[in-house]
């Protein structure tokens, strides 16, 4: 019995792993992602064009407070007005009327080229600051230059957060947690789709080439389905492991390329960090960056994250790929048919992804808790939350319950899919309705 599942699993695994597309996708996908990130960062840096804003100021003092920089340049030239600002090379015109104290007054921006949300709030902040600075100057005669130097020398405190784990307090990093959470959740989302769809295509292939009936006269339909699911899952795990190996070796390689003296400075900086100082004397900014980055890499609990990732990847994969297998067995040659039947299975996956992006902003909230316990969404949402800390953000009971429910969930979907598959794989002709599939699952 299990011997036959093993035979089928092995065939699924070896035929896929030996395929050239497996090697290509394993090594090209990370390269493509790296390339994509590099190019998009590069484009966003290139594309950060300067906004040239003409200012018509009825108060007369903004000229002293609004300073041009790389993102916005202000032009106070008196011959500018709302009609000719564009001709004179400005992208927008800011009209500030007299702003009397104790009364909200509206000032306006007219533009040719839109400032993004970020640009608008940046501009607003600068104007608010200018008003405050001007009022301080008016009421206390502290000059702008004095204020600036105070601000500069006041930059002496830096917040570091620690996760309280009883005896020890572990350094935490919200940025790192968020980034890792996003990456884990997105990876599970992608892998569920890639390998779930592979299972569905495999089942459809067996059905349309009519090999299914030949094989089913040797093994039980359930064994054929399970062998396929396990074989493709093993391909997924192999691919993931290769990625981990690839990343780790790339990181080691990168570390090897950093010159020795900088590494010494990095060690110094790390010591300084441990002693509660933000920067050690005589350490170059490059070394500080490296120290910051290694700190970033060292904060999360990688062992736990890797374990949970494997668990939720396998659990989520079994949960969804069984459903994909059931759909593959039900459809005929028609790809459109498959797509319409797939929708109820893909919707929860896509939903989970959206929930994950919302939950990342408040990983301890109600939505996050429930979505990471229910098996439909738990693989993606829980993986988004775990990097924020266990048992801090995710208490042990939540993790345990979520894992147990996921196991129960995939046992159920595999059982149900087995019933649908058994009937569907030998049915040709009409596309089954949801009602008939329900009958196959629960009545036959």
């Amino acid at each position: 019995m299990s011997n036959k599942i093993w035979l089928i699993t092995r065939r699924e695994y070896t035929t896929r792993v030996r395929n050239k597309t497996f090697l290509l996708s394993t090594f090209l996908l990370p390269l493509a992602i790296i390339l994509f990130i590099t190019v998009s960062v590069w484009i966003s840096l290139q594309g950060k064009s300067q906004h040239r804003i003409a200012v018509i100021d009825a108060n007369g003092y903004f000229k002293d407070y609004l300073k041009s920089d790389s993102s916005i340049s202000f032009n106070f030239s008196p011959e500018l007005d709302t009609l000719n600002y564009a001709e004179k090379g400005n992208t927008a015109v800011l009209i500030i009327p007299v702003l009397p104290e104790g009364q909200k007054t509206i000032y306006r921006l007219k533009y040719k080229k839109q400032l993004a949300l970020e640009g608008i709030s940046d501009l607003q902040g600068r104007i608010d600051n200018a008003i405050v600075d001007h009022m301080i100057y008016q009421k206390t005669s502290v000059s702008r230059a004095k204020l600036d130097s105070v601000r500069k020398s006041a930059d002496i405190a830096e917040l570091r957060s620690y996760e309280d784990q009883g005896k020890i307090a572990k350094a935490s990093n919200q940025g790192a947690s968020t980034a890792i959470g996003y990456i884990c959740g997105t990876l599970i989302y992608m892998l569920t789709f890639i390998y779930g769809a592979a299972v569905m295509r495999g089942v459809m292939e067996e059905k349309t080439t009519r090999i299914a009936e030949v094989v089913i006269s040797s093994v039980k339909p359930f064994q054929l389905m399970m062998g396929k699911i396990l074989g493709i899952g093993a391909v997924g795990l192999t691919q993931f492991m290769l990625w981990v190996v690839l990343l780790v070796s790339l990181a080691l390689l990168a570390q090897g390329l950093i010159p020795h003296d900088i590494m010494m400075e990095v060690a110094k900086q790390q010591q300084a960090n441990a002693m509660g100082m933000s920067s050690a004397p005589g350490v170059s900014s490059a070394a500080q960056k490296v120290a910051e980055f290694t700190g970033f890499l060292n904060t999360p609990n990688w062992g736990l994250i890797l374990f949970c990732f494997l668990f939720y990847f396998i659990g989520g994969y079994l949960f969804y790929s069984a459903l994909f297998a059931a759909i593959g067995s039900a459809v005929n040659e028609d790809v459109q048919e498959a797509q319409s039947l797939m929708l109820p299975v893909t919707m929860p996956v896509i939903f989970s992804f959206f929930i994950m992006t919302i939950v990342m902003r408040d990983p301890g909230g109600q939505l996050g808790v429930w979505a990471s316990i229910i098996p439909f969404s738990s693989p993606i949402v829980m993986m988004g939350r775990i990097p924020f800390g266990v048992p801090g953000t995710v208490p042990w009971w939540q993790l345990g319950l979520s894992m147990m429910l996921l196991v129960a969930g995939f046992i159920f979907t595999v059982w149900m899919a087995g019933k649908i598959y058994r009937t569907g794989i030998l049915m040709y002709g009409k596309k089954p309705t949801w009602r008939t599939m329900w009958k196959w699952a629960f009545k036959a």
Partner: protein
Amino acid sequence: MDILQVNHLKKYFSSQRAVDSISFNLSKGSIFGLLGPNGAGKTTLIRMITGIFYPDEGEILFEGSPFDPKNDITHIGYMPEERGLYKKMRIGEQAVYLAQLKGLSKQEATQKVKEWFVKFEMQSWWSKKVEDLSKGMGQKLQFVTTVLHEPKLIILDEPFSGLDPVNSNLIKDEIYALARKGSTIIFSTHRMEQVEEICDHIILVNRGQKILDGSVAGVKQQFKENLFSIGLEGTGNSSSTTAKAFEVVGNKEGSLIVKIRDGYRSNDVLSHFINEGQNITAFTEILPSLNDIFIRLVEGTPLARQFQPTTA
């Protein structure tokens, strides 16, 4: 000894009594023809015998004990009508894989596949893919994978479709050879001339029920119409012959076709012509072909099987 006994087998689907109480026995080493029009329930019957479907009622005995799909399945080789192979898999590996699924070890399977490939002159195919094969070549490969594990019971559904006469004969000879070695063969087809040539025993299924069961010769006897062909020297206007014992129903290639009336024997026909002084050159009984019997029995039932309620 009977290798297979099927007793009152029933399988009802929601809108169809696919198999409605069919029984038959199958003796070891025989070549058995399972005939019936499209949709008669043959495939459903075969799927129950191969353990793909569970019967609703009735029992199957395999070598005298109740059929246990888990173990007995390894003694069955089934080539379905709708058959296929993994297109992207190498042919040798595929044959070995399918044999392994039937319980052979890898060495055993590899050795057997090699033997069969030599026998069918397919050695050069080993590392080709199925998608490179023609339909007929695929068919040969499929046959090899069906019989490779030396099953006691071989079920072939339309095994000759898509094969040229040379390859058909190759497969036919193998079927005889397998039967001689003790395998029992169930042969399902619409091609009556093949059944007549190959099978010892047939059953005819229509609308889920067995309507005919017997040896090929016996069935022909059962359906004979007392037709004889008589060759007469210098036949002139004897086609207008009238006699008490028979009537002339036709004239074919210089021979008279006569039908003997009830209560008379063939000798009465001969005496008639001898008495007339005619010289008889040939006298043979005309037996119906299976094709005629098939058409006669199946004709009159609707061409397409109608859906029927199963609450009976």
